[in-house]
């Protein structure tokens, strides 16, 4: 009876792997798809954080294998379009530049115009609502015996304003969602 060498952790792991059932082609395809989606999101995040330029993201998507390229591009485009917001318009052009780099059907200027219309309508309604709620509050204060040019209600700190703001944001978010979908190629927007 000879002495038996202890197996290394690597050898034990390899034995376990060898014992596992082999992935079929569908499962391999699914794994590659998940990997491509994750890579596409990472590419978009790097662009949003200004780590990568728009030419970098074009090159990175182009480097995907032909069967994975579609997933990577779609997830990058979805990630970029989700970053568009009603309350942060200063980043819109940068995001749309990135989208236009991955989807040739999108023109930054035209898309920016459409997006600005949505944001402007939201901001105008928000401002008008603020003014009208402030007027009501000023009247209420006057009844309590508090008025004058030195004093204004701190509406932004009040729950009533925060609830109204959330309600308006939700109603305009529907328009934004439709716009975001329109930035994806037709086959991807479903």
């Amino acid at each position, binding site marked *: 009876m000879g002495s038996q060498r202890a197996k290394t952790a690597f050898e034990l792991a390899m034995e376990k792997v060898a014992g596992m059932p082999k992935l079929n082609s569908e499962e391999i395809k699914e794994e590659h798809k998940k990997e491509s989606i994750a890579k596409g999101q990472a590419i978009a995040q790097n662009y949003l954080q200004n780590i990568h330029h728009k030419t970098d993201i074009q090159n990175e998507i182009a480097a995907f294998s032909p069967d994975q390229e579609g997933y990577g591009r779609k997830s990058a485009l979805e990630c970029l379009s989700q970053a568009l917001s009603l309350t942060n318009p200063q980043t819109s052009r940068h995001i749309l530049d990135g989208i236009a780099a991955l989807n040739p059907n999108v023109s930054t200027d035209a898309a920016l115009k459409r997006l600005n219309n949505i944001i402007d309508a939201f901001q105008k309604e928000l401002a008008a609502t603020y003014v009208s709620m402030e007027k009501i509050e000023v009247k209420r204060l006057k009844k*309590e015996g*508090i008025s*004058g040019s030195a004093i*204004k209600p701190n509406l932004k*700190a009040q729950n009533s304003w925060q609830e109204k703001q959330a309600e308006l944001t939700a109603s305009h978010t529907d328009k934004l969602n439709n716009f975001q979908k329109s930035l994806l190629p037709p086959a991807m927007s479903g």
Partner: protein
Amino acid sequence: MQLAKNLYGYIWQGQDNNCNSYLISNCLDQNRHLLIDPGHIKTKGTDEPALELLLKGIQNDGLDPGAIGLTLLTHCHPDHIEAASFFQTRINTKVAIHRAEADIYQQMGGIADLLLDEGDLKLGTQESVLLDIIHSPGHSPGHITIFWPKEKVLIAGDLIFYHSTGRTDLPGGSLAQMKQSIKRVSSLDVDWLLCGHPYGHPGVIQGRDEVKENFQFLSHQMMIEP
């Protein structure tokens, strides 16, 4: 203690640091009162019951502390603002602070119901008390002083004390702004100068000549150009 008709002062008499508080009575609807700078709840060094003493002082003057409808804060330092939340949460008193200090106030746990800017503040449904809110930075960026022209009262917060001024070395302080602010208010017609602290003096300077002397002293000390 009553200083004049509808005007009360609560001069801090403890050992630890706290501010003087002032009250204008019956100036809001339903005969509710205006309180300026409620101060600490308890002092920070020795736990002196500052708010309890203020409430007793108000009651001793025959006034109901539960009828305080509005609290003005001259600036956002703990020794002036801490007890504001007590009045706000217990009796629904509205709290007002200058717009420039509302964010700091919120970071310190308070929520201002009203934001102040330079301008006039009309109190009472018949607007029977007219106050001027004067933005007076120097001790802090959004420091205000409150002038009541009809009664010639200037509530000075920490801008001016008896023969001294508020510090300018705290965050947001500015000696240049302090000089400008003192220069501005020194031109007002004041019979009562009500200071934010009793430093070496109760902080209630009464009489036109006495007020003038205090401004002259400060102008000389601080080399404020006439």
